[in-house]
């Protein structure tokens, strides 16, 4: 067979029917269902008198609307309108539901890999654009709309147009205090928020091979912020070791057969990509967003861009509007900008290594006066791991609030928001207007950079703190 990319191999494994043109009907190996779009889709399905075709391949959790306030046990304002309906509908549909109080509960994009639900070479769909996160496991995973989700639940398939293939090649050695978050923010800042539109992206190169599973998930999580529905990393021993023994991972003879298939998934050396992007990383500084699109991202050592330097009128206006909203002036250094809030969490950065990184920075320091800092674990399992390592004590001793798992301040769908006009350094993935609450101002960064902002009260190059 001709040389194929990893994307093509996984795609080919799942074609149920060729629909002509570039369209195909693909098998969905895993369907993830949450309390907003998921509950809507399940409701619509059951209302139409249809059934969930393969409930054993579907998994649910009410990650978006639970409260993360430790005093509440997760029961908040949307418990009756969103959390309980999901519980009821999944019971009706016979779907495994990781509810509040369940040891497996968490943000779906955290618990999929963690439970061994997401496997290399699987297709994973969810009514959530950050489903691309699962590509870090070598899965072909993407976000779908509610109607597509109804379709998936009813038929265990998705209709899909084949995207083009792009490879992002990282090269060099990861500098100290740089993380996967910095790498992907750098790519989006350089290439633009629409640069991946129409592509399935594969991340490759030596620096990628050294990344931990958690870092790969972070990297793939932001694929959609460059416009790519899909981002993938070839699976290897690091992934297999991580998966071995997880609750839903294959065992025995199945494990051996799976390994044989997974070992063939990497792109063939001769495989051609429609686009290649090269990213040297040796000299990168930590990155942070300054505006209202993830492409508004610069190195922390840089200055806010000047719209006057922009030849294109539309772009110039967009930059000015973003600066007005965010309250920063052209040409000003981003470093030293005072902050009011810090959020360490979301499906981007809410895993053990993220809190370990933050704890290293805040250890022996105090959250700056007037700053509110939250650490929100991605799952009950992460929470347990962090607490077993005693890291939550380090965070709490510094004045960081250690909370319950959920999406929380990432999108504010549960009512947890940043007040209007206040500035938040956030480890999440979107800095859109109003994303963290009406009028809120978001700066996307790594957990280390967020922690540095918490203890200094301003945007700070973490390398200065850590020497």
């Amino acid at each position, binding site marked *: 067979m001709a040389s194929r990319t990893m994307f093509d191999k996984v795609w080919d*494994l799942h074609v*149920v*029917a060729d629909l*002509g*043109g570039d*369209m195909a*009907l693909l*098998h969905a*190996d895993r369907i993830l269902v949450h309390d*907003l*779009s998921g509950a809507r889709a399940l409701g619509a399905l059951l209302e139409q008198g249809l059934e969930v*075709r*393969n*409930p*054993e*391949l579907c998994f649910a959790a009410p990650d978006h*609307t639970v409260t993360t306030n430790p005093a509440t046990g997760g029961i908040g304002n949307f418990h009756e*309108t*969103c959390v309980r309906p999901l519980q009821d509908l999944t019971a009706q549909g016979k779907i*495994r539901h990781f509810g509040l109080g369940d040891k497996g509960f968490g943000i779906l994009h955290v618990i999929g890999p963690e439970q061994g639900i997401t*496997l290399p070479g*699987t297709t994973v769909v969810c*009514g*959530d654009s950050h*489903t691309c996160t699962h590509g870090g496991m070598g899965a072909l995973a993407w*976000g*779908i*709309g*509610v*109607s*597509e989700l109804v*379709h998936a639940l*009813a*038929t*265990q*398939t998705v*209709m899909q*147009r084949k*995207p083009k293939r792009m490879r992002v090649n990282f090269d060099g050695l990861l500098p100290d205090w740089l993380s996967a978050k910095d790498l992907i923010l750098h790519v989006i800042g350089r290439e633009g*928020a*629409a640069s991946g*539109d129409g592509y399935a992206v594969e991340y490759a190169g030596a620096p990628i091979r050294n990344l931990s599973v958690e870092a790969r998930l972070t990297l793939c999580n932001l694929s959609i912020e460059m*416009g790519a*529905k899909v981002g993938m990393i070839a699976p290897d021993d690091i992934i297999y070791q991580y998966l071995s023994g997880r*609750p*839903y991972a*294959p065992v025995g003879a*199945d*494990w051996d*057969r*799976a390994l044989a298939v997974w070992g063939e998934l990497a792109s063939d050396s001769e495989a051609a990509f429609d686009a290649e992007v090269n990213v040297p990383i040796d000299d990168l500084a930590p990155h942070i967003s300054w505006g209202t699109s993830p*492409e508004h991202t610069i190195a922390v050592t840089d200055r806010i861009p000047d719209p006057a330097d922009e030849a294109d009128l*539309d*772009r110039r206006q*967009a930059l000015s509007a973003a600066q007005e909203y965010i309250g920063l002036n052209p040409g000003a250094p981003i470093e030293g900008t005072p902050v009011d809030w810090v959020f360490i969490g979301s499906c981007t950065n809410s895993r053990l290594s993220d809190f370990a990184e933050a704890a290293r920075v805040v250890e022996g320091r105090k959250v700056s006066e007037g700053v509110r800092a939250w650490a929100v674990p991605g799952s009950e399992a992460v929470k347990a791991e962090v607490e077993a390592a005693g890291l939550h004590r380090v965070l709490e001793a510094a004045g960081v609030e250690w909370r319950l798992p959920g999406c929380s301040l990432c*999108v504010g*769908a549960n009512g947890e928001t940043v007040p209007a006009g206040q500035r938040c350094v956030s480890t999440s993935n*979107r800095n*859109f207007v109003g*994303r963290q609450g009406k009028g809120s101002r978001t700066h996307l960064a790594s957990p280390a950079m967020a922690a540095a902002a918490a203890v200094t009260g301003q945007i700070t190059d973490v390398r200065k703190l850590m020497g």
Partner: protein
Amino acid sequence: MQKFTSLSAVAAPLPEKNVNTDIIIPIKRLVGTERGTLGEFAFEPWRYGADGRPNPNFVLNQPRYAGAEILIAGTNFACGSSREGAVWALNEFGIRALMAPSFGAIFFNNCFQSGVLPIVLDDAIIDDFMIQAREVVAGSEFNIDLERQIVTSPDGTTVTFETESFRREALLAGLDDLGMTMKRIGDIDAFQAADRDARPWIYGLQHKV
């Protein structure tokens, strides 16, 4: 689902690039609002001022674009979250077709589930259409003919566009994806039967529940 065959309507220009779905429909409207009443909140952050009153500068509030059923948009329109409410809000507002150099990929697919037609056209054509939409007398209409895949602008220019034949047939027949796939259940049965042998580890997870 409503059919889409052809449409003659006023088009509103929205030149901003990378308009995201948080702008088209804020998340709080998706948590608390019933489908069917989302049109009121389409573009809420731009359409209304802080006092809740319509913002007169926003294009869809301007009398000359009243009743617009077509939106001419900038690159990467409706990027961001997967919320299908973005399509519902636009559709419930009255938008039946969109023209842009490119669309957020998830949004693009979602359009076809509600009988909304997204049309991809070259930047230069979009720029020209924006100018026509702004400068021609109020009430001048664009015509979209899906069967022939032609857009005719107020000054009489015609341009062709492409839609996947599969998508076109479904829109013309008023069938959403589920309606199309229900005709193929046999294919799915056959795929899963063979796949259970080839990849047994994908299936049979129920015992862990």
